[in-house]
């Protein structure tokens, strides 16, 4: 199915209470800010699990949802960049799963790639391996990490064509191509929408089969 270009409100109608939301961005760079702003201002979905490298910044991006008490659980490598997220975990307002950043990225990749998990030496023997299967493989202790999938992925791309092919820009790419593969519905916020054929086929980072809905960035 080709992706459809929709309004912010229509896009957000696909986010429901209790959903797991995958969200691209490294800090706020490459984060789908129009979608996140609208999610905070115009949606009531709550009890959300968010999967994102950071939980936004105070009051910004996912940080706005956090302030509204709509996040139940966070899966991230670096909660620390939003002190309010750290405080929310410490007070028990939200629960947290902390993963090494490469493990976090690979778990999402694995989720999108149909894998059951993978073994990695990263984190083996540390506090972050607690409760996980560990075994020695090739002479190294390794930890079994399970894939991550979501109900909805929110990503940001610099450009999209009308079918949903996405092209990212510089370090705004980060987790976006991974998130786009690993959710039931992928919503891409894009800086510009261009006709099919005008993106260089060699420069399409996310082929359109991963993308369901397109929203053109505000402003």
């Amino acid at each position: 199915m080709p992706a459809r270009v929709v309004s912010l409100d229509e896009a957000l109608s696909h986010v429901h209470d209790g959903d797991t939301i995958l969200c691209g961005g490294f800090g706020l760079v490459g984060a789908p800010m129009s979608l996140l702003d609208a999610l905070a201002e115009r949606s009531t979905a709550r009890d959300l699990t968010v999967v994102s490298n950071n939980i936004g910044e105070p009051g910004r991006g996912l940080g706005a949802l956090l302030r509204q008490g709509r996040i139940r659980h966070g899966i991230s490598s670096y909660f620390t960049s939003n002190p309010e997220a750290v405080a929310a975990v410490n007070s028990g307002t939200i629960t947290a799963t902390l993963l090494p950043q490469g493990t976090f990225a690979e778990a999402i990749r694995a989720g999108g790639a149909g894998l059951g998990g993978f073994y990695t030496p990263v984190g083996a023997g540390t506090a972050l391996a607690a409760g996980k299967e560990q075994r020695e493989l090739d002479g190294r202790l390794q930890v079994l990490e399970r894939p991550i999938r979501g109900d909805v992925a929110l990503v940001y791309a610099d450009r999209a064509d009308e079918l949903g092919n996405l092209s990212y820009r510089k370090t705004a790419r980060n987790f976006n191509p991974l998130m786009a593969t690993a959710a039931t519905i992928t919503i891409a916020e894009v800086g510009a929408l261009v006709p099919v054929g005008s993106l260089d086929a060699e420069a399409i980072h996310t082929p359109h089969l991963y993308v369901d809905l397109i929203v053109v960035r505000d402003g």
Partner: protein
Amino acid sequence: MADARLVIARRAAAELRAGEIVNLGIGIPTLIPDHLGTDTEVFLHSENGILGVGPRPVDGEIDADLIDAAKRPVTALASASYFDSAQSFAMIRGGHVDVAVLGALQVSHAGDIANWAVPGRDVLGVGGAMDLVVGARRVIVTMTALSSSGEPKVVARCSYPLTAAAAVDVVITEQAVFRRREGRLVLTELLDGASVDDVRRSTGGELAVALELL
């Protein structure tokens, strides 16, 4: 005595060789590029998805889509490439990054490193630290000899949560260089006028000293 951070950064720069792929952590490592000789071109990898990080931008050159892993604006070299986070960490875990230079809270004589969490404080940010110390081919720790409360940071055993065991190859403080030889950190070089006794006083446990320094 010279500024400790500059002594450390200058000495760490001398560890790097032309053509190497290098990942620099936050803090002292960010000072290293200023101390590289003109004949030592290295390629800086940043785990948020760029190989070929260039100098900091001047005003008007800032690109909101171009940052390093510390979220600071950077520029890109003509040779730069961009990639997603899974590929970036495949580079790291897969042994394609030659050197990681990063700070630490503690390093043990066995080369264990603790640099992501302090007991009793927030342990909610690990970022790429574990991936880098496990995956980079050489791990160089740059840190002051003592913590802000005056405790040695090279210790017999790490009391803080480990980032990885037996991962550190070189430790550089403002006083000394330590190298891991046969599984144990050995003092191999004195810096900025420090003596072996100075280093011993600011090191936990029993200091191993290279023969050439005795």
